[in-house]
């Protein structure tokens, strides 16, 4: 199943993340796909804001995994841009995060589709040439996400 929408500014992408966050549950996993500059980190900043996490969410490209606590639940922010092999992700102990006590969001998750359970939500962000507009497509098979995404878009 898919739900499409669009945002006009980075702030709107963040705000959508913040609204979606209020429906998250521990164990939820979101795969973010989209090119450089598509707004992936901006969306995660919104999620953190929506969970009531203080402190700045920054790009995890260098650290691969960043953990944010102090909100409604822990938020685990992955960026697998620089990982090439599934073994790398296993070495990093991804399962402890995916099936842990918080919500996990993975930038560039498409590189390792096999690790995502069928209950995961995928969000594709597409950048348009020389504008701030982004096409967003939510892809999921778990029916629960339909209600969540629709509520977040309201």
């Amino acid at each position: 199943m898919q739900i499409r929408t669009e945002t006009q500014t980075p702030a709107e992408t963040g705000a959508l993340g913040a609204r979606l966050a209020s429906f998250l549950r521990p164990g939820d996993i979101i795969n973010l796909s989209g090119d450089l500059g598509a707004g992936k980190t901006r969306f995660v900043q919104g999620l953190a804001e929506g969970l009531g996490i203080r402190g700045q969410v920054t790009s995890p490209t260098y650290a691969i995994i960043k953990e944010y606590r102090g909100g409604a639940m822990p938020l685990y922010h992955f960026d697998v841009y620089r990982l090439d092999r599934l073994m790398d992700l296993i070495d990093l102990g991804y399962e402890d995060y995916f099936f842990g006590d918080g919500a996990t969001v993975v930038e560039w998750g498409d590189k390792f589709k096999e690790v995502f359970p069928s209950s995961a939500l995928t969000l594709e962000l597409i950048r348009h040439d020389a504008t701030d507009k982004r096409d967003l497509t939510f892809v999921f098979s778990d029916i629960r996400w339909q209600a969540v995404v629709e509520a977040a878009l309201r």
Partner: protein
Amino acid sequence: MLILGVETSCDETSASVVEDGAIVRSNVISSQVEFHRPYGGVVPEVASRKHLELINPVIEESLAEAGVGFEDIGAVAVTIGPGLIGALLVGLAAAKAIAYTLDVPLIGVNHLEAHIRANFLEDPALRPPLVALLVSGGHTILAVMDESGRLTTLGETLDDAAGEAYDKIARFLGLAYPGGPEIDRLAALGDAKKVILPRAMIDRDDYAFSLSGLKTAVLNYVSKLEKQGQEIPLNDLAAGFQAAVIDVQVAKTMRAAKEYGVKNIVLAGGVAANAGLRAALKEAADEKGIKLNAPTLELCTDNAAMIASLGYEYLKEGKTIDMTANSDANLPLSS
């Protein structure tokens, strides 16, 4: 006292012997940049595997160069964070084993603080208070050090780190890895006025940085020209990008120096090697009668001498760690 420093937070395996926190007896840096080049960035698993292969030879080399043996070492200082967790753990495990075997103190050092420390190692006359601009692959932080040496973070990047922005843009433009030196090199050949890019947050009266918007501006600029079938003026684009990054960093650093009334500014971190940044900050500092310190290349990049040197200060304060200590990938500069 001789302190053995061990640093494995990212892509460098490094070991160093430093005497009394001040005299660098050896500083062995086994640069892995050559190894990472085909991947267009630091590949973490590769990094930790290479650290494992290199850690013992690098430590042995650092002792040999210093002309000492394990029995001469009085304490072991090791980076405990921030960095890549798998890479950090290799250094910590090695340091624990050595400290345990020799029965000497083990010191866990903050990598970011050590970068700032590199300036004191190079210039023993340097005294706080000072403002520090720490720019690297994973960090962009402006901090103030008070007279007692205590660091307070004034602001940092809200999204991408400076070195990360350089690497991502370089990769996007198909330039050689590492991206920073390559953009720095091209920028010197180009005209920044020909490609004007946004100076994010330059007018905000805080010390935060943002590089994500600049990254997007470069992408938009390139795709616009491509659509028009025009060639990308790489040198001018590199110059325009670099000027946009540097202008904001210089403006905020100078503002912090004024607000805190300091007469010293220090650059730290791998991006401190950037010639454009050094020149621009030096010019602005000179104008205000402020002294700028910037470490030589060897002490800018990740290295164990800065770890051993700061470790000596920690030891004087009794800040040691025990065998149960863990690495902290997200350790902040100041809490």
